[in-house]
């Protein structure tokens, strides 16, 4: 089972690729009670298996969209749905299950410095009480996928930034999530390394995982020619298939 909707098993099976998996409907949210809305009246849909860029200036609301999807935040009005599950209605005890189906990577990698690369990846399985047999089988496989099997016993500090980000991607993927979300994953990387990471994300997407990536990086967006959702001041100003970073 690769999809999120454990709560509604009827929709889990026989879902064809291309069906709408993520659905924002008139979503508004704010961080402080009387503050400006971080998002207002945002609506879009993302289908199973899509690759989507979220672009926009700093403070536009890209990270807020991602935070709503892992129920780190709740929308004020409107609804956020994944596979017909309304995240606003999700009970607290069901939040972990939602997150197990979404891999997440960040600009700052968020690796544990005291653990080796394979321990970092295994950590994501251990906290879910996976068996040793499963861990021993899955961790090398996913490290192989990101091309770091030969560095499995190094510590994060002994890796380059790009390699560290690949470890983070391996950790995000090790539970076979349906969705991979990346918040500025290349923000700390040089252009060559950025290209490598993008190639990896593209490869993961081609294997069937929905990828949503928030970024500032115009060059990458222009090059990849994927769907672009542009946010300005908490509102969607553009939603374009095979788009570029800006009209300029």
């Amino acid at each position, binding site marked *: 089972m690769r999809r999120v909707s454990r709560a509604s098993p009827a929709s889990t099976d026989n879902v064809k690729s291309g069906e709408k998996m993520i659905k924002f409907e008139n979503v508004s949210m704010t961080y402080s009670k009387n503050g400006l809305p971080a998002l207002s009246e945002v609506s879009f849909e993302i289908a199973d298996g899509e690759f989507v860029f979220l672009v926009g200036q700093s403070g536009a609301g890209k990270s807020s969209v991602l935070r709503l999807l*892992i129920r780190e935040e709740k929308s004020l009005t409107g609804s956020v749905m994944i596979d017909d599950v309304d995240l606003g209605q999700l009970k*607290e*005890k069901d*939040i*972990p*299950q*939602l*997150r*197990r*189906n979404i891999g*997440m990577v960040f600009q700052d990698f*968020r690796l*544990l410095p*005291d653990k080796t690369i394979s321990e970092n990846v295994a*950590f*994501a399985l*251990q*906290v*879910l*009480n996976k*068996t*040793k*047999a499963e861990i021993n089988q899955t961790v090398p496989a996913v490290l192989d996928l990101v091309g770091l099997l030969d560095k499995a016993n190094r510590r994060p500090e002994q890796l380059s930034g790009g390699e560290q980000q690949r470890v983070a991607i391996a*950790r995000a993927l090790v*539970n076979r999530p349906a969705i991979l979300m990346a918040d500025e994953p290349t923000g700390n990387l040089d252009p060559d390394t950025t290209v490598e990471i993008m190639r990896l994300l593209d490869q993961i997407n081609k294997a069937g995982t929905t990828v949503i990536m928030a970024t500032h990086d115009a060059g990458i967006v222009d090059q990849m020619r994927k769907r672009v959702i542009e946010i300005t001041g908490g509102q969607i100003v553009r939603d374009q298939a095979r788009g570029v970073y800006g009209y300029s």
Partner: protein
Amino acid sequence: MSSLTNRTKFVFGEVWQGISRSITLTIALIATFAISLSLLGVSLLVGSQVSEMKDYWFDKVEVSIFLCTSGSDTPSCVGGPATPEQKTAIRNDLEAMQPLVAEIFFESQQDAYDRFIERFKASPISANVTPDQLPESFRIKLSNPEEFTAVVNKFLSRPGIEAVRDQRATLSKLFSVLNGLRALAFGFALAMLVVTALLVGNTIRVTAFARRREIGIMRLVGASKMALRMPFLLEAIFGAFIGGIFATGVLSLIKGYLIDQIIANSFSFTSFFGWQAVVTASLICLVSGTVLALVTAWFGIAKHLKI
């Protein structure tokens, strides 16, 4: 099975990391648990001692009915020394009070004199006492020492009787001192337990901060609420358990050394609580320490850890 031990190893590894990372705080946690649980245990032992002494002494306690002598000057003794008829009437009345009155023993003036001499043989006052100065008395054992007032009411101010005395009155003063001590120890124990609870809360706050990276990742990959909380609960229980073991040691020392080696030798007038009381008190300390740790940790985590 192997996967279970594997998980256990993982969780304990994480807990051990948390403990060694904030070692001073862990020591403080263990120390407050040790002190508060020891105090709790001491108050329990004092309680055991009080009931031990009650059992021991109430067994021996008697009510004494002192009869008038020629020297008595209480109003009930205006008729002079108790007459044989009065004595017979008293004995009959006492026998009628069975089963409350369990044993009756008549002490003659000569018996009283012998006992007096035996008790005060080293003292100069024994030289000036003659048997006729000491009162005859009925010594009575009650089946239920608490009901001595029934006896007192029946015989008080009766002609021929000078006084009715219950040894319990003397003892109850001692018991009230002991009960006061127990209350004091218990009060300190409660205060320390409150301090301990606060420290558990603080430890969790610090641990949550020290483990914020791990916690962030655990939340992100969908660890359950229980998996997130487990290291904190285990750390608190660890503190309570080591503290409880320490308290058990303190209580054993009190019994095995302080009581058995020192106090018991110089106080032969009573028996002391046995090892069973130490075992019970230690178990109560361990259990209540663990429960306190669990409850305060649970609420502390709820405050510092969101899903």
